[in-house]
């Protein structure tokens, strides 16, 4: 198939920043690199990377395109889903625009139904993600991964060998290890960096497309932060150590992290999608069945779409201990049913099993609740 190489018609109406990111994507497309657009931490990146494609995240986190999305979708739907659909409809996101194939998974109800409409005007492929982590579920997910590989082969007319996949497994494991080394810096007390700065790096890493050079870049940053910390370990005074969990929090929802840190707390750990959830586990490089190894690794991600969801508690418990967490803040997006329902279980686990305070805040990508968020975070931190 021919990959998309032209800029959108509305390009000239964009602001400078957006033009720049469009042009960066445009240049990659001129080198004949296909773009695979993805939405979720469950997406098995190694398969797409193995054909030399660029994997781009399409989860949108701005309320800019929500009014466009609401022409088709209900208002009372998660802002991430509406924002993403809106960007697809308006061609305002370079990655959406240049994606030659968009891959979704049957994760939450809102997303999988949205993909049906998205498929009417974008090339969409939906993987069937099981909603539990049983042996039968693992077998299904393994088959889905193979089916997806075959889809890429026929869609782009390429061959993906096992050797190609194994190479990407090694590269991506290395990326995960490097990112883990980076965020583990916040085990230090006092902290060497603010949570909001740490988050920018974690979030930005997903948009670094050369995965082979990425670990080196991250490790250089780790070395730099360590050296600075040795010079001046007290750059940030001691403060309550907060772990953030819940929905993906990029873009519009970063206001929650800022509100915690503006009111006397430090976010030292993110359990969310851009944080530990997507780096904690590696793909088994020894397993002779590479598809099974990949399936195992991705299916074990502890997202609230799984029922039951023991791995989220396992990871949370470990992070609370390792990072000496004083309190947990859960950030959920409006109408994200699975995470919102799961707040009760997380509250019980954090307060009863781990014996530390917990607070949940439900928000969206607007700035309407910043005053209230500040009051809540300040009151929560006063309580510690």
């Amino acid at each position, binding site marked *: 198939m021919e990959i998309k190489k032209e800029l959108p018609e509305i390009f000239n109406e964009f602001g400078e920043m957006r033009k720049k990111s469009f042009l960066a994507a445009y240049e990659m497309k001129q080198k004949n690199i296909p773009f695979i657009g993805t939405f979720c931490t469950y997406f098995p990146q190694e398969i797409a990377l193995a054909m030399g494609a660029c994997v781009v995240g399409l989860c949108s986190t701005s309320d800019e395109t929500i009014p466009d999305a609401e022409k088709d979708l209900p208002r009372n739907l998660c802002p991430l889903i509406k924002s993403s659909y809106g960007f697809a409809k308006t061609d305002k996101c370079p990655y959406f625009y240049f994606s030659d194939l968009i891959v979704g998974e049957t994760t939450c109800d809102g997303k999988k139904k949205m993909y049906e409409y998205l498929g009417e005007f974008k090339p969409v492929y939906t993987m069937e993600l099981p909603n539990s982590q049983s042996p039968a579920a693992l077998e299904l997910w393994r088959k889905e991964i193979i089916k997806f590989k075959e889809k890429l082969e026929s869609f782009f007319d390429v061959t993906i060998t096992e050797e190609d996949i194994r190479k990407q497994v090694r590269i991506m494991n290395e990326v995960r290890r490097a990112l883990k080394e980076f965020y583990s810096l916040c085990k230090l007390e006092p902290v060497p960096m603010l949570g909001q700065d740490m988050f920018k790096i974690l979030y930005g890493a997903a948009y670094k497309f050369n995965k082979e050079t990425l670990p080196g870049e991250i490790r250089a940053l780790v070395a730099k932060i360590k050296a600075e910390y040795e010079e001046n370990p007290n750059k940030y005074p001691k403060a309550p150590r907060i772990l953030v969990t819940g929905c993906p929090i990029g873009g519009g929802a970063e206001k929650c992290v800022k509100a915690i840190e503006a009111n006397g707390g430090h976010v030292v750990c993110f359990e969310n999608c851009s944080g530990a959830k997507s780096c904690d586990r590696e793909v088994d490089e020894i397993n002779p069945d590479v598809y099974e190894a990949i399936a195992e690794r991705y299916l074990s991600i502890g997202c609230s779409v799984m029922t039951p969801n023991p791995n989220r508690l396992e990871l949370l418990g470990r992070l609370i201990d390792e990072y000496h967490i004083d309190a947990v803040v859960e950030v959920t997006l409006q109408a994200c049913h699975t995470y919102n329902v799961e707040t009760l279980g997380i509250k019980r686990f954090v307060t009863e099993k781990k014996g530390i*305070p917990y607070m949940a805040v439900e928000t969206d990508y607007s700035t309407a*609740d910043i*005053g*209230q968020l500040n*009051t*809540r975070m*300040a*009151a*929560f931190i*006063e*309580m510690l």
Partner: protein
Amino acid sequence: MLTLGIDSGSTTTKGALFDGEKIVRTAILPTSANPKDSINKLYDMLYNEDVAYTVSTGYGRALLDHADTQITEITCHARGAAFLNPSIRAVVDIGGQDCKAVLLDSGLNVVDFIMNDKCAAGTGRFIEVMMRILEEDIGNIDQFVAGHQPINITSMCTVFAESEIVSLLAKGADKGDIALGIINSICRRTSFFAQKLNLTGDIFFSGGLAKFEIFRSTLQDYLQIPVHTSELSQYAGAIGAAVIGQNKAKRLRS
């Protein structure tokens, strides 16, 4: 040594002077469209040279340049309520633009809280809007609803409830019955909300509505837990701020 607490709420600005044992003076002003003017005006009314420390709280807490520190209304309401009645273990506050419930431990420290700040329906604003439609002064509400039978108000939203009331009036329903229905509606909603916390001990009811007996007794009926108020309920946030100010000032002196 005196300390001053000022609570800049969305509807009223309250202040309290505390001498370490008792509240020596209070003052209240409607919050104007320029809340900074209101908070400064209240400060000028209460401040004297014996005041060693000033704490501001409430939505406008950042607007008082004279404040030595700012503390959220959650912590201040809890401290103020515990000062007014040390037997309580929770606080329910119905404010002008939000509603909050705070859980205390046996040492009267805040251990958990929830806030409803997304919708006017569970707040004092709801009552204010409804009373305006009924053309009744909220100050007489206890007498106004006495002996009436509540009409069920089903709309959850302030705007829809308003049109529900307009149509009830058009049908010739009794205004006192409607008013009691409105009171039941907000108290029922507040009790569902507060029960999200693990309420066990007595509750202190604060905020502007707490001065009306009908709100206290209706809330108590729904919660099935003793609900207390005080003549100074509306000042709970300001009193808490002044009480915290004493601790801060003492710590500074030692």
